[in-house]
C-alpha cells in the first residue's frame, strides 16, 4: 500500500464536478494526496467525501483561479499540510454561448479571464514549487475546439486555443528544469458544463445527436478523460511534453 508521507501530491482546480472531480477520484485512487479547489462548495464537499469514502486523502478550498493572491495562499496551505506539490491538473473553466455579433465584452472577458489568466496564475505558482525540487508535471484542460474552432462560442474557442499555446510555451520553458506540461483536448463529455449549454429538455436529443455524429457513437464519460490525466501525470509519460492528447471519440484527428 501507499505510504502516506511519500505519496505524490496533486492539485486539481475545478474539482467540484465533471472532469476535475473524475480526475481527483482517479488520482486519489492511485495513491496521490489531492488538494482540490472550485467555486462551488457543495460540489467540492461531495468530491472530497467520495475520495475519503474510498480511503483517499483530500483537502479542499474555495479559490477563484482569477485571484493570484488567493492561489498562492492556498498553495502555501497545501504545502503546509502535504509537504510538497508534485502534479497539477489545471482544469477550472466555464462555458458560454453566443454569436460574435451579440457578444458583450464582459462575456468575452469572463471566459478569457477564467481559462487563460486563471490557468496562467495556477501554473505559475505551481511551477515555482516544482522547479524547487526539480520535478513535476502539469496537465491543462484545453479542448478539441482548440483545433477546429467552435460556432457561437468564439470566446470559449479562443480561450481553449490560448491554453494549448500556453501549454506548449510552458513545456519548452520548463523541460530543462524537469517539469513536463501537456494538455488534454476532450471531445464532448457528459459533464454539468456540457449539459448547461442547452435546456434539460433538449438533453436527450443532444445525446442522440452526439451518438449519430461521433465516430465512436457514444458521448464521452469524465472517466475517459481522467485516465488520460492519470497517464500524463505519471512516469509512464516521462518522454511526453508539449502535446495535446484528445480523448474525443474520433471527433477530430490531426
Amino acid at each position, binding site marked *: 500500500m501507499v505510504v502516506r508521507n511519500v505519496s505524490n501530491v496533486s492539485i486539481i482546480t475545478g474539482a467540484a464536478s465533471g472532469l476535475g472531480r473524475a480526475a481527483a477520484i482517479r488520482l486519489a485512487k492511485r495513491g496521490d494526496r489531492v488538494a482540490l479547489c472550485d467555486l462551488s462548495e457543495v460540489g467540492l464537499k461531495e468530491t472530497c467525501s467520495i475520495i475519503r469514502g474510498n480511503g483517499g486523502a483530500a483537502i479542499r478550498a474555495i479559490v477563484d483561479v482569477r485571484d493570484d493572491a488567493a492561489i498562492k495562499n492556498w498553495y502555501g496551505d497545501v504545502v503546509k499540510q502535504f509537504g510538497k506539490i508534485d502534479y497539477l491538473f489545471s482544469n477550472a473553466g466555464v462555458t458560454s454561448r453566443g454569436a460574435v455579433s451579440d457578444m458583450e465584452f464582459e462575456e468575452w472577458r469572463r471566459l478569457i479571464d477564467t481559462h487563460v489568466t486563471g490557468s496562467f496564475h495556477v501554473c505559475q505558482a505551481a511551477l515555482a514549487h516544482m522547479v524547487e525540487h526539480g520535478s513535476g508535471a502539469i496537465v491543462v484542460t484545453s479542448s478539441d475546439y482548440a483545433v477546429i474552432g467552435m460556432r457561437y462560442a468564439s470566446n470559449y474557442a479562443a480561450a481553449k486555443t490560448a491554453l494549448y499555446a500556453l501549454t*506548449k510555451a510552458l*513545456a*519548452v520553458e520548463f*523541460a*530543462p528544469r524537469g517539469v*513536463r506540461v501537456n494538455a488534454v483536448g*476532450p*471531445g464532448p463529455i457528459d459533464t454539468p458544463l456540457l449539459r448547461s449549454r442547452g435546456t434539460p429538455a433538449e438533453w436527450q436529443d443532444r445525446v442522440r445527436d452526439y451518438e449519430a455524429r461521433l*465516430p*465512436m*457513437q457514444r458521448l*464521452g*464519460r469524465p*472517466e*475517459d*478523460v481522467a*485516465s*488520460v490525466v*492519470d*497517464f500524463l501525470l505519471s512516469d*509512464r*509519460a*516521462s*518522454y*511526453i*511534453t*508539449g*502535446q495535446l*492528447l*484528445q*480523448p*474525443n*471519440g*474520433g471527433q477530430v*484527428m*490531426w
Partner: protein
Amino acid sequence: MAEGSSEHKGRVAVITGGSGGIGNAIADRLQLEGASVTVMDLVPRAGGAKLESSSSRPPISFYQVDVAQEREVDTTFKSVATREGKIDYLICCAAIFHATPFLQLSGDEWRRTLDINLNGAFLCCREAIRHMRPHRFGRIVLFSSMLARTGGKNSAHYSASKGGVLGLARSLALEVAGENIRVNTISPGVTDTPQPRDHLSEEELYGRGASIPLGRIGRVEDMVEGCLFLLGEDSSYFTGQDLRINGGASLW
C-alpha cells in the same frame, strides 16, 4: 504490473517488426503482462530467447514474414487466428529507413520503403480487421514518426511512408469506430534503437538529445508505455489519435 492484475492478460497480440528495437520490447512487455504474443519479422528475435525458455508463460510465436507480401501476411494471420481463436491487438512496428539524399534515391529503395512501412501496415490491418470484426473488439497501434510532420533531410521516402501511415490510421479508425475497434498511432522522435545507427554514430545519436527540450533521445521503454496506454482502457475514448512521444522535439 503483476500478471494477474493486468488488463492485457489473455489478449492475443500480433506485432510486426517484433525482432527489432521497439517491437521487440513491446513483445516482451506484453508477454510479461500475460498476453499471447506472435511476432512477424524478416529475421528471428534476438533478445527474447532467455525469457522464453526460463518463463512459465507461453513462448512468443515467431513467423518469418515479409509484411509487404500479401499471401505471406494472409496465411500468417489465418494461422494465428486458428491457433488462438481470435486476434485482439495488432501493433505495426515493421519499418526500414536508410538515410539517402533525394537525388540518390532509386526507384527500388523508394518502393521498398513504402512497401514495408506503409503497404505492410495496410495488409496487416486488413487481415487483422477481418479477424477482429466478428468479436467486436480490436486495438490497433501503428508506428508513424515525428518525421511524418517535420520531414527531414535524406528521408523523403521514409517521411512519405510514415505520413501515409497517419492517413491510413485515421481513415481506418473512422470505418471501424462503431465496432469497438480503435486505431491509433505513435509518432516517436529519435529513439535509442538499432535503426538510427544505420546513419548516425553513437556520439551523434546521443548528441541529438542536447537539442531536445527534455534533454535526451527517446528510450524504447517510453514507446512501450505509450503503446500499452493506447492498447488499454486508459485510452478508452481515443481513436484516430497520434501520440507524439518526442521529448518536446516537435509540438504539433
